[in-house]
């Protein structure tokens, strides 16, 4: 709270100086943040502001100012564009293009059948093969995907959740075939099933066996793949589904708490796995609110790990996160305007201290991005890094009266949600009740209503509109792709040792029925023999069952 003397002065100013003006020229309507938070006339110093407790120094608890002491004065964030479409061959050439353009890490987008554990020739995959990402059916496709890309040199992020163990197994073997051992590979699997139930939708199994698979990955990687980020606990999709900034970090941290609780519950030592937990947030248009959001999130996570889970290692308390600019803010109308939105969002992520960033392309409200528009998106990051100057200063907005008060406010409201979810019995319970989904939907509905009423302006959509011709030159995925994948699958199934495949799959099936078996080695064995993603997932479906969403409207 601002101190009393200042507060009195502020009231006086509001009555006199400000009042004189607003009586003749009233304030604009709807002076709210992107998340609908009222803003004050002016922000003034906070009373008894404790620098040490609230901020501290970068690289030190509670990490409000950043997780590294140097931040971008040492090296820039990793510029990591999410990409993938069509066949493994097409995606492979897009990755090589991006690396040649100065991108510093890979981020793999998989198609929906891959994300939900179906082969391309499964009838349920019809129409979806290769559409929103690359189609991966077996190790064979993964070998093509990384052909000529040295896995000891790049770090790779894979947006894969329910079948994360299978794709990680494939990556491990591709690396092995390149002569790169598993303790050398670096990267991330998303592996965050809770937000799939909440917002993103690519779940397969019910919560209990899904949490077991996650624990198996934590345990396996802490011993065998030590440089791998075993989960990317994601608020991105929660925000895309329409949540507020507070809900984004509150539900993400509550998910994180659930994962940590579960892993500790099966006997893992918190400091053995917590350092490999990573996060993934959205960057929206409200620049200052977003910056405060990242700062609050880091501070809360540090407190959660230290106070709630008694973590000892500093790394266990550091919230490292990836950011992606907000797809939902992109407009199909006047798509060039999206370049400006993405630039603002980039500034938010960078001034908020992200570790890596994907910038969206201007045409993504219309189709998958073309090579040209992806380049502009990457250049946006490079301009912010090399020309704007903001990367020379660590946590540049610290000490702003507004930023610090907003950071505190976001933190307080986030704790309210976390405590409420704890009272409900944790995140799985809150999801099963539909509570989290309902909270997000209500925010999404309020936002859209405000846009429809014109209370919230979206440039080019509900104001400053023009007649414009349909944009041309959009990227189209080859509709024959499904056939290509089906033919490849036929070849894989005829060339592999099918007796070995059956052995491995039945060993996996047996392992799945025993709670205390780590499934990672069994999955790796199956993948090595070219068992397909669909075959492996089906074995697990049979043992684990499938999740059905509880529809909340």
């Amino acid at each position: 709270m601002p101190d009393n003397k200042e507060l009195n002065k502020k009231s006086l100013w509001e009555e006199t100086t400000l009042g004189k003006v607003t009586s003749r020229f009233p304030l604009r309507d709807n002076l709210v943040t992107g998340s609908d938070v009222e803003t004050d006339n002016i922000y003034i110093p906070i009373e008894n502001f404790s620098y040490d407790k609230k901020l501290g120094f970068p690289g030190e608890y509670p990490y409000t100012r950043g997780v590294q002491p140097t931040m971008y004065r040492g090296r820039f964030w990793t510029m990591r564009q999410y990409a993938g479409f069509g066949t493994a061959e097409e995606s492979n050439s897009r990755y090589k293009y991006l690396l040649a353009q100065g991108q510093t890490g890979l981020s793999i987008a998989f198609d929906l059948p891959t994300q939900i554990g179906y082969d391309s020739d499964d009838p349920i995959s019809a129409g979806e093969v290769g559409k929103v990402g690359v189609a991966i059916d077996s190790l064979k496709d993964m070998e093509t995907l990384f052909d000529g890309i040295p896995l000891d040199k790049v770090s790779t992020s894979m947006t894969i959740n329910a079948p994360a163990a299978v794709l990680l197994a494939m990556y491990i073997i591709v690396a092995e075939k390149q002569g790169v051992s598993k303790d050398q590979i670096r990267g991330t699997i998303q592996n965050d099933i809770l937000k799939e139930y909440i917002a993103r939708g690519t779940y397969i199994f019910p919560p209990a066996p899904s949490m077991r698979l996650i624990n198996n990955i934590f345990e396996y990687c802490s011993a065998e793949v030590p440089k791998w980020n075993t989960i990317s606990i994601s608020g991105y999709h929660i925000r895309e589904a329409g949540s507020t900034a507070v809900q984004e970090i509150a539900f993400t941290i509550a998910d994180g708490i659930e994962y940590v609780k579960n892993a500790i519950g099966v006997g893992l030592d918190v400091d053995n796995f917590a350092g490999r937990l990573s996060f993934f947030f959205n960057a929206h248009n409200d620049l200052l609110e977003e910056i405060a959001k990242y700062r609050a999130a880091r501070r809360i996570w540090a407190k959660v790990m230290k106070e709630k889970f008694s973590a000892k290692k500093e790394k266990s308390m550091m919230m490292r996160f990836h950011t992606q600019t907000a797809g939902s803010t992109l407009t199909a109308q006047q798509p060039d305007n999206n370049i400006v939105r993405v630039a603002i969002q980039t500034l938010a992520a960078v001034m908020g201290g992200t570790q890596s960033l994907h910038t969206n392309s201007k045409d993504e409200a219309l189709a998958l991005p073309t090579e040209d528009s992806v380049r502009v998106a990457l250049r946006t990051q490079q301009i912010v890094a090399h020309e704007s100057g903001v990367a020379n200063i660590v946590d540049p907005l610290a000490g702003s009266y507004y930023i610090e008060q907003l950071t505190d406010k976001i933190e307080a409201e986030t704790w309210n949600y976390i405590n409420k979810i704890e009272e409900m019995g944790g995140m799985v319970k809150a999801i099963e009740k539909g509570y989290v989904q309902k909270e997000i939907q209500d925010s999404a509905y309020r936002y859209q209503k405000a846009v429809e009423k014109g209370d919230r302006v979206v440039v080019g959509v509900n104001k400053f509109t023009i007649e414009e011709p349909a944009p041309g030159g959009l990227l189209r995925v080859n509709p024959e792709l499904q056939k290509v994948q089906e033919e490849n699958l036929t070849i894989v199934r005829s060339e592999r040792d099918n007796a070995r495949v059956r052995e491995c799959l039945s060993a996996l099936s047996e392992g799945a029925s025993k709670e205390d078996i780590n499934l990672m080695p069994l999955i790796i064995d199956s993948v090595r023999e070219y068992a397909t993603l669909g075959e492996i997932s089906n074995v697990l479906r049979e043992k684990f069952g499938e999740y059905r969403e509880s529809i909340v409207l």
Partner: protein
Amino acid sequence: MNKKIRIVIAKPGLDGHDRGAKYIARALKDAGYEVIYTGIRQTPESIVATAIQEDVDFVGLSLLSGAHNELFPRVVDLLNSQNAGDIVVFGGGVIPEEDLAFLKERGIEAIFRPGAPISEVISFIESKTGSTAA
């Protein structure tokens, strides 16, 4: 028309982006229509079965994965083959302009693209039924 207009909002395919579908469902409900929302990951067959069982007047399909050219026409074809061709099908999502003519030709009567206000959807429904929700 005495009977209340009934609409099923459905998510065909494997795409989990349901923000738009849920918004449309809720906004149409608020506008006075009877709305059934299917949830995600529906096959064209299950959508058609729901539409017939619920005796709806409209089917609204939402898809953001790019599989619309395959999945939307299948819903229309299945409705036709089950003597339910009088049910009006419309759609929305990330759908390039150049696909609009094809979808129209295959019987999807309207496509609402990102940014389309709910009032457009309501005007469309009213134009098809010649009446308002209430």
